[in-house]
C-alpha cells in the first residue's frame, strides 16, 4: 500500500459563526492528479489556502509527506514549501520583475547556484511551458494565457514534488484553456509530480483528473475516479454533471416579507 503524500484529517474552519469546512478527511497519493471540484463559495479556496500554508485551520491536521503542516514552525514550514509549487488563479507574477526574474527568484533565494546556471535553468523552465525567448518581457506585456504559463514555469522552478493549481483555466478563452490543460498533462508525464487542481470547470476536470473530489457546503460528498463520478447517483453530483441550476425554493410570502423587510 502506498503512503499518501497529503493527508487531511478532521479539518474544520470557521469565519466568525460561519462554518466553511466541516471536518474534512482526504488522502492524496503520490503521482496522481487530484481535482477538487466545487461550486463558488463551497470552501475550496479556503481548503487550498490551508494546503499551501497561507491560513491556519480552526481545527484539524494536514500532513504533507508526514510533516504536520498546521503545527510546523516557520522553518519546518518553509522546508515543506520548497517542495511545493503553486499556480495562482491570478497568476500572481511579480509585476515589477521581468518574466525571467520571476522564474529565477526561488532559485536565487533558495539554491547556491551561480547566476549563469540559474539563467540556463530559467530558460529551460520557460521553454517547457512554451515561452522561450520571453525572459526579458514584463508580465504586463503578456496575454492572460501566457501569464498563466509563466506562472506555471515559476511554480515548477524548484522541481516541486507537489503542484497546486487554483482554477488553472479560469478567465481564459476555451482554446487557451485547453492548452493549459494539455500542458498540465504533459508536465505530469514529464515530471514525477503530484498535482492538486482546484476548479469548477467540468471540461478540464475530465481531461486531467485521475481522481475527483466534490466539495459541497464544507464537506466532501464524493471522492472517486472519473468513471465512478459519471456513474454516481448522489444528487449534487448529478446536478453538477448535468449543469442544472438550483431549484428556486423561496415561497411567495417569504419573498414578499424579505422585500418589505419584515
Amino acid at each position, binding site marked *: 500500500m502506498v503512503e499518501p503524500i497529503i493527508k487531511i484529517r478532521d479539518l474544520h474552519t470557521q469565519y466568525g459563526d460561519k462554518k466553511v469546512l466541516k471536518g474534512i478527511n482526504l488522502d492524496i497519493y503520490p503521482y496522481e492528479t487530484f481535482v477538487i471540484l466545487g461550486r463558488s463559495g463551497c470552501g475550496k479556496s479556503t481548503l487550498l489556502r490551508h494546503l499551501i500554508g*497561507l491560513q491556519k485551520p480552526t481545527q484539524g491536521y494536514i500532513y504533507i509527506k508526514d510533516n504536520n503542516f498546521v503545527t510546523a514552525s516557520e522553518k519546518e514550514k518553509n*522546508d515543506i*514549501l520548497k517542495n511545493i509549487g503553486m499556480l*495562482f488563479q*491570478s497568476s*500572481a*507574477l*511579480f*509585476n515589477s520583475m521581468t518574466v525571467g526574474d520571476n522564474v529565477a527568484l526561488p532559485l536565487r*533565494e533558495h539554491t547556491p547556484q551561480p547566476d549563469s546556471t540559474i539563467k540556463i535553468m530559467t530558460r529551460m523552465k520557460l521553454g517547457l511551458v512554451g515561452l522561450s525567448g520571453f525572459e526579458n518581457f514584463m508580465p504586463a506585456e503578456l496575454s492572460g494565457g501566457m501569464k498563466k504559463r509563466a506562472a506555471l514555469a515559476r511554480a515548477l522552478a524548484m522541481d516541486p514534488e507537489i503542484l497546486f493549481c487554483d482554477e488553472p483555466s479560469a478567465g481564459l478563452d476555451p482554446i487557451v484553456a485547453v492548452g493549459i490543460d494539455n500542458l498540465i498533462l504533459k508536465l505530469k508525464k514529464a515530471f514525477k509530480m503530484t498535482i492538486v487542481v482546484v476548479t469548477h470547470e467540468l471540461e478540464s476536470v475530465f481531461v486531467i483528473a485521475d481522481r475527483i473530489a466534490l466539495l459541497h457546503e464544507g464537506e466532501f460528498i464524493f471522492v472517486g475516479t472519473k468513471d465512478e463520478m459519471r456513474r454516481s447517483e448522489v444528487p449534487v453530483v448529478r446536478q453538477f454533471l448535468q449543469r442544472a441550476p438550483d431549484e428556486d425554493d423561496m415561497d411567495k410570502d417569504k419573498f414578499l416579507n424579505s422585500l418589505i423587510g419584515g
Partner: protein
Amino acid sequence: MKKTFEKAGQGFVEFTVHLARISSLSVRSLFWIFIAPFRGKKLRWHLTFVQMVRIGVNSVLIVGIISFCVGLIIAMQAAYQLERFGASIYVADLVGVSMTRELGPLITAIVIAGRSGSAIAAEIGTMKVAEEIDALETMALNPIGYLIVPRTLAMIIVLPCLTVLADLIGITGGFVLAVVNLKLPFIAYFNQTADAILFKDFITGLIKSFFFAIIIAQIGAYQGFSVTGGAEGVGKSTTASVVSSIFLIIFADLLFTMLFYSTL
C-alpha cells in the same frame, strides 16, 4: 449619548489594535535588520540599493529645493525681528541651530513620508491585492524579510544622509539672504554659523531622523499589508500612510525635542 461613548470606545479599541500591530511588525522588521544577520540570515543588499536609489537619490532635488526655501524663510523671519535690535548677525545662529536641530530632519522626513512612504504603501498594497504577497509566502520567502527589511534599511541609511544635505542647503539659504539682502560680510556670517552650531545640535538632528526613518517605512509597510479590497483599498491605505506617518513624525519630534531640550 450612549452612541457617542460607544463610538469613542470603538475608535479607541481600533487605535490600540493598530498600534499593537504596527509595534509587532516593527519589532519583527528590526529583528531582521539588526539581529538576524548575526544568526546567519543574509540581508538582501541588492534590493536595499534599489530602494536607496528610489528613496534617496531620486529625492535629492526636491529635498534640496524645499530646504533652501525653508532656510530663506527662517532667515527672513529672523532678520525681521533681529534687525530692530541691530543684531542681524544672529540670523546665522538662528538659521544654523534651527535647521540642524529641528527643521532639517523634520522637513526631510515629511517630504519623504509624502513621497516614499506613500510609495511603499501603494506598492505593497498592490502586491497584496494581486496575490503577490501570497505567492512570496508559498515560495518560502518571508514578506518581511524580502519586502520590508530592504525598504526599512534603505530608509534608515538614506534619511540621515538627506537630512545632512537639507541642513547644509538650508543654512546656505540663510546665508544667501544674509549676504545679498542684509549685506552682512561673507566671512563674519560663516564664522558666526560655525560658532553657533555645536556638534550635539547636529547629532540630535540625526538621531531624530533615524527614528523618523523607521516610522515612515513601518507605517508605509503596515498600511500596505492591511489593504483589503481592490484599487480603492490601495488608495485609502496610501492616504492613511501619509497622514499617520506625518502625525507620528511630528509627535515623535515633540518627544525628542522635549528630551533634548531638557537634557542636552
